[in-house]
């Protein structure tokens, strides 16, 4: 079947099929996929309803070393920029999140924490590295995606946020 001279056509059909399957997810410049999740305080929060605010969405887990380092950095960003219409959201991706809750108990965080136990949201946002940080602008458009966390990323986030605030 594949050995005649038209084999590449059948193959390209298959490839087209697989490529079309990957057509969802986060793309810079495209609207951020909407979601509703309950935060730690028990409030249901919807992303589209936050139009007008700059949202920094951070996917984290307690087993991820860089994420643990990053949490205090995110808290300083929230403290510094919340009056300017910036919200930091931390989305825990653990299937069993007790360890995550214990980790939070030792920190004094004021920003919204969500639990994505089913990993549906992580799938939609194509979390390709831990942690992944997505910054959504006032119009609900994905503007920045940062994969991983290293020293100095806090400054990168701050720079991105400042740029979006000035718009």
């Amino acid at each position, binding site marked *: *079947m*594949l050995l005649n001279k*038209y084999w590449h*056509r*059948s*193959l390209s*059909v*298959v490839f087209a*099929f697989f490529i079309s*399957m990957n057509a969802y997810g986060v793309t810079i410049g495209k609207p951020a996929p909407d979601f509703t999740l309950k935060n730690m305080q028990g409030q249901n929060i919807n992303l589209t309803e936050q139009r007008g605010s700059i949202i920094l969405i951070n*996917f984290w*887990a307690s*087993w*991820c070393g860089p994420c643990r380092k990053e949490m205090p950095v995110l808290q300083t960003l929230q403290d510094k920029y919340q009056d300017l219409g910036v919200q930091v959201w931390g989305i825990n*991706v*653990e*299937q*069993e999140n007790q360890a995550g809750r214990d980790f939070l108990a030792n920190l004094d965080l004021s920003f919204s924490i969500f639990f994505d136990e089913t*990993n549906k949201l*992580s*799938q939609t946002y194509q*979390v*390709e*590295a*831990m942690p*992944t940080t997505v910054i959504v602008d006032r119009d609900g458009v994905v503007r920045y995606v940062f994969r991983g966390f290293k020293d100095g990323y806090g400054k990168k986030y701050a720079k991105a946020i400042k740029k979006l605030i000035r718009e």
Partner: protein
Amino acid sequence: MIKYTVKAAILLALINLTGCSSLSIKPWVKPYERQNLADPIMSASRHPIASMHVAHVLDGREAARGAEGGEGGGCGCN
């Protein structure tokens, strides 16, 4: 044209048969699913600093740098 469509359909069916069901392809553990893999019990050594050093030595000796977290020696090579 119908011939090719049939061929494509057969090929898709074959892919389904291989176990990679076309609707739920999960070829690898996603980064957010590494909860169990990241458990300390999964590491081969209980001495991270010592094993990091061994990894670094082997990296240099075997010219097989990368993937183990071993760092360079600062010579600017490799």
